[in-house]
């Protein structure tokens, strides 16, 4: 175990604190009656956790590919299940992203959620706990528990505070995801029976037989492809996104979808490299279909949230494309794209939430022609939309560039097919932007964004430019981890 895991260098268990602080905050909420106090406690918990995440990041050493800041406590010894936590280059930014989005979600629900505020904030904080836990867990069972535990608050967020069709959307989301998870569980048990331990690092880069790899890969892949979602499994996503409250959509788009691609990177590639390579062509094809299909469907949407939801299918297609290109550029691009999508799409959902609070409609037509009415809003919205179709200088450009470099290196034809996807993205986002800015002439009375709304969009705005113009600090942080992954795969697959 120790050879994979560099122990915690802080004087306190930093990862556990980051995971369970939101839980403590959530429990605290139960004892408070006043709604404003509830909101403030949730916000403070979120902010403190963000600071903790930065502390965690400051202790992160980018010069090693090993898991760091590790914690190890035996949990169920008779089954060799341990409480193991650790971060590496892949997860450290995802944890930061989650910690950043939680206070933003609390802020964006400040006035939008009017009833059962306490329960809502409770769900948000439990979500944060589970999401950070998923990224930190280095034990299969711990991972699985966090992975599934996340479903319950997310289900409740959609089912209780969602839109008119929340009933259908929440059930579909839950059952779809659970269906995948069950196969994940069977695969986990299969790996355990082969390696004798539930340790994730311990299961990596081993010499399993090819049939074993194929079955385990397929079981993993179903779970993760549903979560991403990849093309034929994407139908839960538009429904869930559209009906979820803004905070729910942000969590779904920015963090939950990343767990699928994170799963591919953390489990499929290192544990079943040969099977991954065997199936890579199919996954590349599915990704390409997702990119182009998502783009076309977006073109015909009249609902803002649905459009952004389908654009997620396309964007996540780029991520899986990068992963299955088996090149270092592809991996780096995929990880960058995961972060970019988290920032940009999250911000777009926040924008939709802001306008929805004013017009109570998600239809593009109802919200059209805001250029003169809400100039600040349109400014933000414009920035995030052009970032969404990978305009040079914004974050998505770098990510897509890396992915395209990777996929062209891997297979030229596949690369050619990805290009139209990028063009389609420009088409549907510009169409949306045009409608929102100039779509209608009539004068309406709508208040522009207030300070609170500006405050929570500004950090995302900064990230858009930072990751677009100076991506080096980001790439440098996870380069070692991904290079190690790439090398190991090369050694095994040669």
């Amino acid at each position, binding site marked *: 175990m120790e050879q994979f895991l560099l122990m915690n260098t802080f004087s306190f268990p930093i990862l556990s604190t980051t995971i369970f602080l939101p839980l403590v905050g959530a429990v605290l909420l139960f004892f408070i009656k006043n709604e404003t106090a509830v909101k403030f406690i949730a916000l403070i918990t979120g902010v403190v956790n963000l600071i903790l995440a930065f502390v965690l990041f400051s202790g992160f050493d980018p010069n090693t590919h090993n898991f760091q800041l590790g914690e190890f406590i035996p949990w169920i010894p008779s*089954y060799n299940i341990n409480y193991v936590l650790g971060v590496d280059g892949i997860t450290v930014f995802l944890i930061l992203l989650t910690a950043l989005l939680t206070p933003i979600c609390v802020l964006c629900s400040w006035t939008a959620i009017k009833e059962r505020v306490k329960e809502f904030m409770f769900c948000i904080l439990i979500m944060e706990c589970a999401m950070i836990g998923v990224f930190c867990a280095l034990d299969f069972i711990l991972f699985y*528990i966090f992975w*599934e*535990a996340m*479903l319950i608050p997310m289900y409740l967020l959609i*089912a209780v505070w969602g839109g008119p069709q929340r*009933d259908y959307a*929440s059930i579909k989301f839950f059952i779809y995801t659970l269906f995948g998870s069950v196969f994940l569980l069977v695969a986990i*048990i299969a790996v355990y029976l082969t390696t004798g331990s539930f340790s994730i690092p311990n299961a990596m880069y081993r010499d399993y037989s090819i049939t074993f790899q194929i079955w385990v890969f397929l079981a993993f892949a179903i779970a993760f492809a549903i979560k991403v979602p990849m093309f034929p499994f994407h139908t839960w996503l538009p429904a869930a996104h559209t009906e979820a409250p803004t905070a729910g959509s942000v969590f779904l788009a920015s963090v939950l979808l990343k767990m699928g691609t994170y799963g591919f990177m953390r489990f499929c590639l290192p544990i079943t490299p040969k099977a991954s390579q065997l199936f890579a062509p199919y996954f590349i094809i599915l990704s390409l279909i997702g990119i182009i299909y998502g783009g076309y469907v977006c073109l015909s949407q009249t609902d803002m949230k649905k459009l952004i939801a389908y654009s997620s299918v396309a964007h996540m297609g780029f991520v899986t494309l990068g992963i299955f290109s088996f090149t270092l550029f592809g991996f780096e691009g995929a990880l960058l794209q995961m972060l970019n999508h988290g920032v940009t799409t999250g911000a777009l959902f926040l924008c939709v939430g802001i306008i929805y609070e004013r017009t109570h409609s998600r239809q593009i037509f109802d919200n059209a022609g805001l250029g003169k009415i809400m100039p600040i809003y349109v400014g933000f919205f414009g920035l995030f939309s052009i970032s969404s179709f990978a305009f040079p200088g914004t974050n998505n450009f770098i990510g897509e560039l890396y992915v395209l470099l990777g996929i062209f290196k891997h297979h030229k034809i596949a690369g050619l097919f990805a290009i139209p996807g990028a063009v389609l993205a420009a088409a549907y986002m510009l169409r949306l932007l045009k409608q929102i800015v100039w779509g209608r002439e009539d004068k309406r009375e709508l208040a522009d964004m207030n300070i609170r709304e500006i405050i929570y969009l500004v950090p995302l705005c900064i990230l858009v430019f930072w990751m677009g113009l100076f991506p080096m600090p980001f790439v440098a942080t996870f380069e070692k981890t991904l290079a190690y992954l790439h090398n190991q795969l090369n050694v095994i697959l040669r």
Partner: protein
Amino acid sequence: MLILPELYLILISIIFLFISLGKSKEKYIITTAKVMSYVGLIITVLSITEKGELFYQAYRIDLFSQLFKILIAMGLTLVISMFSEKDGIEKEYLPEYFMFLTLSSLGLMMLSSSVELISIIISLEISSYSLYVIVPLRRSQDATQIEASMKYLFFGAMSTGLMLYGMGYLYGVTGSTFISDIIPRFRLIIGQPFGIFALILTLTGIFFKLSLFPMHFWAPDIYEGSSNMTTTFIATLPKVAATALLIRLATIATPMHYNFVNVLIILSALSMTFGNIVGLVQRDIKRLLAYSGIAHAGYLMMGILTLNIDGIVSAIYYIAIYVFMTLACFFVIITISRQGENTTIDNLVGLSKRSPLLAMTLAVSAFSLAGIPPTGGFTGKFFLFTNAFRQGYLPIVIIGAVNAVIAIFYYLNLVRMSYSKEAIHYDVMKLSTHEKVICYVLIFIIIYMGVLPFGLMSLFKLMV
């Protein structure tokens, strides 16, 4: 005093017998029952370290039996403490009701200690006859409770008959009624069709109590027809004792007897699939839980059919968590129903507004029944799956996994009704402190067994 818990239960039933002769206030009777059940729990817990054999080695007291007795006592205490005045039992029969309830628990406790065929039958019948009596004790306009009791009686008698038939074979072949004598002699012939036949017939009576697939027919009707209280009892405690007995009898075979194991695998697969698929269309929550119980019996068999220590430990863990999550579900039903009538899924609408705590209890137990972490239902299923997989029974693991997905539909429906459907007009339900405490205790146990299973697991491992 080796059998103090049993003697105490006899004492309770005698006290209630005397109470039934006179006239007393309803409230007074219920309070007496509650207090006595708490004392019973304490006595049972204190007797955990007892060890010994009684009645010419027919009655064994060891950690195994004592832990099962504690589980039964806990269940009985929870069932009785859920009791309230509105619960639809005729007022004048209340003392008798409690008398038979405790007598039935007595039979179940004896069952977990019996290691000889005749005493097994006697304890089984003590518990069954008491249940035959209390099933029709329900205040109701129609005759469903009579139908239920008749069905229960006939099916019960038939299964006991089959069991006796099987035991006759066991005795005929081995010449002994003591399980410890039967095991070495019977293992020699268990590979033959005759051996499998005899053992399966013997197990039939247990399958009946567990409502496992071919013996499941009674469950939905009896759950629906008897009062909420009685159903809560029938759905939980007999299954605990049946598991204890099943472990004693099924381990006559070893994993080498793959023919016997195959039969168990098929029963397990059919039971969970049948229970879950039929469960999908149920509207009455008690019927739904009946089918859920059939499915869970199938899951339980996954642990038994490994026939090794780890598998059996996981089966014990599963029955323990099953008792608590089912009790939690029934508690919500009992509390919602005003006059002790049955609760349908539509009665749950808007529960999260009417009573957030009840809705949460229901959600936790439904998620646990469905097997979603971090609840005990997941941990239990996980142990079962791992052990069955380790023994190489991959097909049953996959069937179990697929079933977990099917089951989520109807369990989630319970949560969905109480959380995402809005009632047009609703009145807030006020829970008493006592009811709140039950909710918190059940939620705590379910989560605790999900997150920190190792203490209990090693305890259960000690007892096998």
